[in-house]
């Protein structure tokens, strides 16, 4: 619109109102002056720009002070909280005054009016966009260093890729709760084996109201010398948990003989009614890591490998099904094949329309739809990517069919070749290279897409990545990111190589 005003126009008929009146009218209703100065389009454009900008500003002000009442209070609060809104308001005011001045100018000169005002409209929209987008370069710079540690973990996650298996020795002693008055045999000394003794051998757990439970003296004998041991409990229904004292986990150090002694308070534990009434047996344990095995691939690494393989196959299967279905569809979507009769032309337009609609919906949305249909997992991802591939490949294939050069077909026919020979020597050589090229390109895209299709439950490594990011396990997420990057890079290279050879 604004460009049109840069070209010299036909001189307009003289203004209906004098310049001063035009300016005044534009103050009353922005753009009215221009309209009466026989520049209706300019007036309408300015009016709509002004109203849109005003509406946007009002919305942002209300949004900045949602709990206040009254125009003045809202505005004051909004400007106080978001000073940038002041700048927006200033631009709007400037525009308001400029429109009036512009009306005066427009009414005075019959030739094309200056376009500076449209630059101001653009700037005002840009400023609103800046505020709506909450653009804050300062925050970006100041918070960058806080992002350092997690990002470092993502960048070099390999500590998480290996783990050492540990053998844990558990030494335990039973405890009766509550005491029944009869003597209870707790832990007993054993010959040649580590053992645990408690004093007393029965007691009460801590209460919910904070009443401390029985204090036990726990003594261990014959454990691994000079090393740490953790104190654990197993309640009567089999739940295991660590002993805490003053908020800290209790860890003891064994002496040179492998003995230790520690005072512990029996912890609070809510037992369900199904546990039954009456005295029950608890178990107190000392746990020690007695040996550390060879380094081996961690669970995360194994999962990532499994899922990246799944990812690649999701992309592959989707491409395969995509090709199978896109091939027939592409013939219906090629204008040069379908323009023979009105009936085929209708099929052509229908096919094109359906392909365009399918293609305009992102694979992620398709994945959500198919997760509803077939449930979580790779099949949903394959379906989503297949549907999108059919649309994309159908379009690309049909366009390469449309761009066939009819010359060679004519020339091969002229040699006395029959229909089959003509297709073989004039059509196929023209179609195959673009088909191969587009297919490999699509395969490339599908594998890239399959890495994130898991974000919505479509299987593949994206599922792990999303999960690890939400668990703030940045090292594990880093492993997934690395796998994705390596796969995509290799694939990019391979597909570029193959395509270079075919086209």
């Amino acid at each position: 619109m604004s460009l049109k005003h840069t070209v010299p126009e036909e001189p307009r008929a003289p203004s209906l109102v004098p310049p001063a009146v035009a300016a005044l009218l534009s103050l009353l209703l922005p753009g009215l002056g221009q309209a009466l100065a026989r520049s209706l389009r300019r007036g309408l454009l300015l009016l709509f720009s002004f109203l849109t900008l005003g509406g946007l500003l009002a919305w942002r002000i209300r949004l900045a002070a949602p709990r206040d009442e009254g125009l003045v209070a809202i505005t004051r609060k909004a400007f106080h909280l978001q000073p940038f809104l002041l700048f927006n308001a200033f631009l709007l005011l400037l525009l308001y005054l400029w429109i009036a001045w512009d009306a005066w100018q427009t009414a005075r000169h019959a030739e094309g009016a200056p376009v500076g005002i449209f630059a101001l409209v653009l700037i005002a929209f840009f400023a609103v966009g800046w505020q709506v987008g909450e653009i804050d370069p300062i925050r970006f710079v100041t918070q960058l260093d806080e992002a350092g540690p997690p990002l470092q973990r993502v960048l070099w996650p390999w500590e998480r890729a290996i783990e050492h298996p540990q053998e844990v020795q558990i030494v335990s002693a039973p405890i009766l709760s509550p005491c029944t008055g009869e003597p209870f045999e707790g832990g007993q000394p054993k010959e040649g084996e580590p053992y645990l003794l408690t004093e007393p051998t029965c007691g009460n757990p801590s209460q919910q109201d904070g009443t401390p439970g029985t204090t036990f003296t726990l003594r261990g004998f014959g454990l691994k010398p000079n090393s740490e041991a953790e104190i654990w409990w197993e309640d009567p229904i089999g739940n295991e948990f660590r002993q805490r004292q003053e908020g800290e986990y209790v860890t003891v150090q064994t002496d040179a003989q492998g003995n230790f002694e520690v005072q512990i308070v029996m912890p609070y534990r809510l037992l369900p009614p199904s546990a039954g009434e009456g005295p029950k047996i608890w178990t107190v344990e000392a746990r020690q890591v007695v040996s550390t095995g060879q380094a081996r691939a961690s669970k995360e690494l194994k999962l990532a490998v499994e899922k990246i393989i799944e990812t690649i196959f999701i992309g592959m299967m989707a491409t395969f099904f995509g090709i199978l279905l896109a091939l027939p569809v592409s013939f219906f979507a090629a204008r040069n094949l379908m323009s023979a009769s009105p009936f085929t032309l209708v099929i052509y337009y229908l096919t094109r329309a359906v392909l365009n609609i399918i293609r305009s919906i992102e694979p992620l949305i398709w994945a959500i739809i198919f997760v509803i249909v077939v449930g979580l997992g790779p099949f949903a991802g394959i379906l989503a990517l297949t549907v999108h591939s059919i649309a994309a490949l159908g379009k690309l294939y049909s366009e390469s069919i449309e761009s066939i050069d009819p010359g060679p077909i004519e020339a091969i026919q002229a040699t006395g070749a029959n229909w089959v020979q003509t297709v073989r020597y004039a059509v196929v050589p023209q179609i195959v290279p673009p088909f191969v090229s587009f297919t490999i390109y699509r395969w490339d895209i599908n594998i890239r897409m399959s890495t994130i299709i898991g974000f919505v439950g479509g299987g593949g490594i994206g599922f792990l990545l999303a999960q690890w990011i939400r668990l703030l396990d940045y090292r594990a997420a880093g492993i997934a990111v690395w796998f994705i990057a390596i796969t995509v890079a290799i694939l990019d290279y391979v597909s570029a190589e193959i395509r270079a050879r075919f086209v």
Partner: protein
Amino acid sequence: MLEIRNLTKIYDDGTVALKNVSFTVPDGEFLVIIGLSGSGKSTLLRCINRLIDPTEGQILWNGVDLAQLEGEELRKVRRQIGMIFQHFNLVKRSSVLTNVLTGRLGYLPTWRSLTGRFPADDIQRAWQALERLGIADQAHKRADELSGGQQQRVGIARALMQDPKMILADEPVASLDPVLAHSILQRLESLNREDGITVLCSLHYLDLVQRYATRVIGLRQGELVYEGSREDIRQMTDAQFKEIYGEEAERIGAGGGITGSIQEDSVAGGAA
């Protein structure tokens, strides 16, 4: 002997491309067809080998009416008629050798040609054709890597593979520069003189017409408006030429002085 009788072609959209055209071409002639763009030259040539079906009339070639042929019979006749195109119509992504070999398709059974492997005889023949046209060293290049003049020579080699008795050339030099134009037409002339192949060729430039034609016919809006012998055309002035041909006509060199004196291979080498 080719005899065209009352040939008429009306396209589906009602355009009358040829109106009652009749003429005869004795064997061994180099017949040049002149006329404006859209005067029906291409339609006429394509009617002869039935790339376009004529609406009415007869095309008698050695006593057989080509206009009536269908299917297998038509293809058997087609393979004896080579065709050369303004835009060469090579399969760009195939090799030069493959393009030349497609000239043999009319002689091959379908199953044999599907594999893309041609008989050793035909490959031998293709090399000879390439040799004869001076492009044997380009045989394994993709067709679109060649210069325009070389591509047209591939086109001629393809036609030659058909063992043609007649060659139809549809403005074979219109996309080439004047020097290459002479080079290509000399090839056709040599096929015409040495092998006795009848040539029907549409051309635009008076000096090329004067230099190569043994007979000339002129078309205007689908009607035959001129028929002349070699002598007639030699004596023709520019003004007469323009009268039949239209204002577009022009000479390309000063009196055709550059004819044949330039080494083709150096030209082709420079263009490649």
